[in-house]
């Protein structure tokens, strides 16, 4: 029977090479990956906020956000935290080693509602990894958007991801960056201290009707950040957030990421705050 072969296999992992990798912070590593097939590398079109499934044969497969921006095609970037079997094995890989990728999956951020509007990007901890994609996307297409505010908080300076990069863009005049750490354990932190919600005080007055917010962080962070955004009177459907669920397939078949009637992998991982009000289990 060839029936099956007529349908493309959406689970087929494709070989890709680790081009470069380095530690971001302890147990968090940055990977640049390129499909071994150059054509595929260029035809892999994705949106900020989408993710890919990364496989290591024999170890398994897991979803990871794409942290690079589609405005710089050819190379995929991922920021990965070491938490278990697959990520452990991935951290043992060297430059030039082969991994397997399939995707892109998920809905990604809705760019439409951001165009010609002010944008607030709020990231907590690891949540900055998917947001880095939209951040660079906006910077690369700067003329399409109005004001850009980037708020990022980590627990302490040692856990501040992409530190060099983010302090570089801080000097640009087309973006306002606000960085904070919960606690400064090192004593050489030059930015704010306190929770990321504190940073809202530093944002100049904005017009909530022309502003879109994008949020990602640990579950506890969402509640507080959303409170702040609502205080600013940003409409509920103009707050985009990206969520995490267990996933096995990425294409709405395995059921793991289902909540109520939606599949995080297909209908998400980006949801608006308005969406989450219907789905009680979302955050």
């Amino acid at each position, binding site marked *: 029977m060839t029936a099956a072969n007529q349908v493309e296999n959406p689970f087929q992992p494709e*070989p890709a090479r680790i081009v470069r990798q380095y530690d971001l912070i302890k147990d968090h590593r940055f990977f640049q990956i390129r499909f071994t*097939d150059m054509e595929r590398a260029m035809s892999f079109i994705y949106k900020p906020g989408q993710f890919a499934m990364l496989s290591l044969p024999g170890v398994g497969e897991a979803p990871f956000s794409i942290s690079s921006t589609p405005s710089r095609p050819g190379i995929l970037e991922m920021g990965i935290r070491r938490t278990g*079997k697959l990520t*452990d094995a991935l951290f*043992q890989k060297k430059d030039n080693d*082969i991994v397997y990728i399939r995707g892109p999956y998920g809905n990604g951020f809705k760019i439409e509602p951001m165009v010609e509007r002010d944008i607030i990007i709020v990231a907590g901890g690891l949540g900055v990894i998917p947001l880095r994609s939209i951040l660079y996307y906006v910077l690369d297409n700067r003329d399409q958007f109005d004001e850009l505010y980037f708020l990022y908080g980590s627990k302490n300076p040692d856990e501040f991801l992409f530190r060099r990069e983010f302090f570089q863009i801080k000097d640009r005049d087309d973006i306002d960056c606000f960085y904070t750490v919960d606690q400064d354990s090192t004593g050489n932190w030059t930015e704010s201290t306190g929770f990321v919600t504190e940073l809202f005080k530093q944002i100049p007055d904005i017009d909530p009707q022309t502003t879109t917010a994008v949020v990602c962080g640990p579950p506890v962070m969402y509640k507080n950040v959303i409170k702040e955004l609502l205080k600013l009177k940003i409409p509920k459907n103009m707050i985009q957030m990206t969520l995490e669920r267990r996933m096995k397939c990425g294409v709405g078949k395995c059921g793991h990421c289902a909540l109520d009637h939606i599949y995080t992998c297909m209908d998400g991982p980006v949801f608006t705050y308005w969406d989450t009000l219907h789905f009680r289990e979302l955050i």
Partner: protein
Amino acid sequence: MEVKSEKQIVKPRIGIYGFTGCAGDQLLIIHTEDQILNLFDAVDIKSFVMASSNPTEGELDVAFVEGSISTEEEREHIKEIRDRAQIVVAMGNCAVAGGPQAMFARDGSFAERIKQVYGDVKFITDPVEATPIDEVITVDYYLPGCPISQPQTMALIGRLIHGVEPEDITTPVCLECKLNENKCLLNDKKLCLGPVTMGGCGSACPNYGLPCVGCWGPNKDGNFSELFRLLNSFGIAHEEVMRRIRNYGGHKILKYIEDIKDKER
């Protein structure tokens, strides 16, 4: 497609040891006829006295340990193995939970029972009450079962050969039992421990129409109190259930049935 071929990995050095038990887990490895030659090929077996003479007892990548710790000498020996092994795998119910010989774990009857079998013989070195090996050393991975299952064991060994952490099974026997299309024995009011027992055996017993006696040990998410209640409602006495669940529960079952004991009193 330009894909770099992976380097051949170094064969892990392996030791397989037996302590107090029935040797069923070592035997099961020997009985894996379709894989035993592959196994000897893929790993460097340094010590496996049940199958081979002239063991070399040095540094090991993985030590598989079967059997419970039941004498002072075994306590020392297991520590010595731990010292030279990168990874220690507790293999089989005896090593994981203490085995059937640990069914009275910590109830204080051990001395009395020794006396029953041996009378008043005075021992030079007293045997100790059977314990799982993790009461003496740290254990990295567990292969439960009395005896272990071939697929689960080979999957674990396959992963260890490649330096990959093994998967842990957190599903109950019922998953495999249903996949094998057995009729639920609880619906026939049988004393089946499947729902509170860790999966991995392939529902070996229900496949033959016989209730699970719990030889894989407790499933951490088992709803123990409800199973007790359900079995009681079939007319099976509380002590009966308690006794059976301890037959293969060893030391590992204790924390799950503590509350149930309390409720009864």
